[in-house]
């Protein structure tokens, strides 16, 4: 579980996060949604420890990040997996080397042992025959799956995903969403996903946090998001033509 208490973060005098307080539970897919520029990525990077908040605290299963010493912070980071928006695969390494990388860096396993685990996670993300391919030789959807495999190979307690299905076709996006949800449940990890894709919200949104101009505007689950009377949330949700048409049809009793 991750507890965020009143975090503030700014750049060059401009405050991006203006006091966010929320909780992300274990075993659930937690979604952070909001329009571009709402502070989602900054919020995620604060939780990853890439940005240091000017105020407030972030607790990981009771351990407050800012109170940990450098070694403890590093140990905590080893328990985090991250899927970046652009996958962030190391382009000079093959798929196998990319997935093996965290194991090479943090374990003392023999190469054969590492390979067993790498093949296991690659099979889990349905990429059995891509071991020797370079990231540039596989599709965007496959790159995302490799990024997920790399993120979970060390069995992290926390999984962060920054717009994991951006740039993917709707069908592949659903595959990636469901994969993340299944992995979250199988491993009982705390998963936090940044997205502005309403399809993801509908597919896997067990807890949804809506950010607007750096504020936490609304939080709830996917069943509540269509019933809320919060104007900003409604505007965001129905900015999708599909959802607008569905709502209009419902109103007309079709």
């Amino acid at each position: 579980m991750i507890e965020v208490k009143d975090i503030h973060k700014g750049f060059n005098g401009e405050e991006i996060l203006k006091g966010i307080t929320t909780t992300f539970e274990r075993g659930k897919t937690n979604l952070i949604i909001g329009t571009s520029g709402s502070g989602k990525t900054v919020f995620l990077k604060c939780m990853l420890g890439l940005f240091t908040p000017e105020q407030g605290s972030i607790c990981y299963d009771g351990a407050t990040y800012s109170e940990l010493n450098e070694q403890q912070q590093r140990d905590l980071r080893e328990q985090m997996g991250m899927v970046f928006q652009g996958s962030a695969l190391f382009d000079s390494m093959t798929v196998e080397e990319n997935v093996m990388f965290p194991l090479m860096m943090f374990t003392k396993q023999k190469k054969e042992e590492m390979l067993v685990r790498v093949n296991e996670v690659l099979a889990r993300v349905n990429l059995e025959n891509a071991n020797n391919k370079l990231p540039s030789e596989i599709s965007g959807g496959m790159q995302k799956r490799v990024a997920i495999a790399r993120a979970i190979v060390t069995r992290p307690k926390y999984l962060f995903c920054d717009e994991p299905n951006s740039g993917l076709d709707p069908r592949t996006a659903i595959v990636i969403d469901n994969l993340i949800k299944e992995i979250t449940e199988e491993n009982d990890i705390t998963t936090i996903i940044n997205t502005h894709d309403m399809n993801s919200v509908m597919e896997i949104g067990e807890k949804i946090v809506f950010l607007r101009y750096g504020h936490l505007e609304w939080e709830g689950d996917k069943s509540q998001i269509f019933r809320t009377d919060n104007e900003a949330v409604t505007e965001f949700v129905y900015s999708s033509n599909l959802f607008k048409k569905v709502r209009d049809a419902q109103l007309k009793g079709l």
Partner: protein
Amino acid sequence: MFYLDDIGRYFLMLRGVFSRMTKGSVLKNLIFKEINDLILGSLGITVFLAFFIGAVVAIQTALNLTNPLIPKQLIGFASRQSVILEFAPTFLSVIMAGKVGSYITSSIGTMRVTEQIDALEVMGINSLNYLVFPKVIAMFMYPFVIAIAMFVGIFGAYIAGVYGGFVSGTEFLAGLREEFIPYHLVYAFIKTTIFAFLLATIPSFHGYYMKGGALGVGKASTSAFVWTTVVIIIANYVLTQLLLS
């Protein structure tokens, strides 16, 4: 103030490079890869440039020897001194600031743009040590490249001087041996080692702290070349003053 800020950040970067070392087995592979990319990959162009620089120095010296009282062996002497003292260590380092420097800046800068550096940091890896330290170690092989360049440069001077009909082989070799001061080689290699460090770290700094997208990588590569060249030229002056005067 802007430059002071950058200088400060450069030294803070160096502290990051030499702290929290990456796992030895991983580091070893990275160093070999960098030696291949930075050193072996530069040998061809270095040898090519050194040969022709040496040749031109010999011809220029020969063409300027209009006084019949000055012995022809001066061509060998001048070629040796020019190549060992300046052309191989300094001139080639400026060329390397373009070749090796832009490669380092663009490779690290692209990793920054594509969030690969963030990925390393999230994993708890000291990205500065992982990315820059192997380059610094690999560049300590750079004096070997310059040693080869010195030999090839003098060989180029010999070929151009002797086969161009400017000087006899005996005269050239006599000039080559004349008043040879071994300390000049020490000076040249001290310079080269310091330039190697600058060649590895200044472009890394520009790549690591670059901002923006693809255009930013291009701008960072250009400024890395300019600043590496400027610092090499200033360092050359300071080192010459300290070591030779």
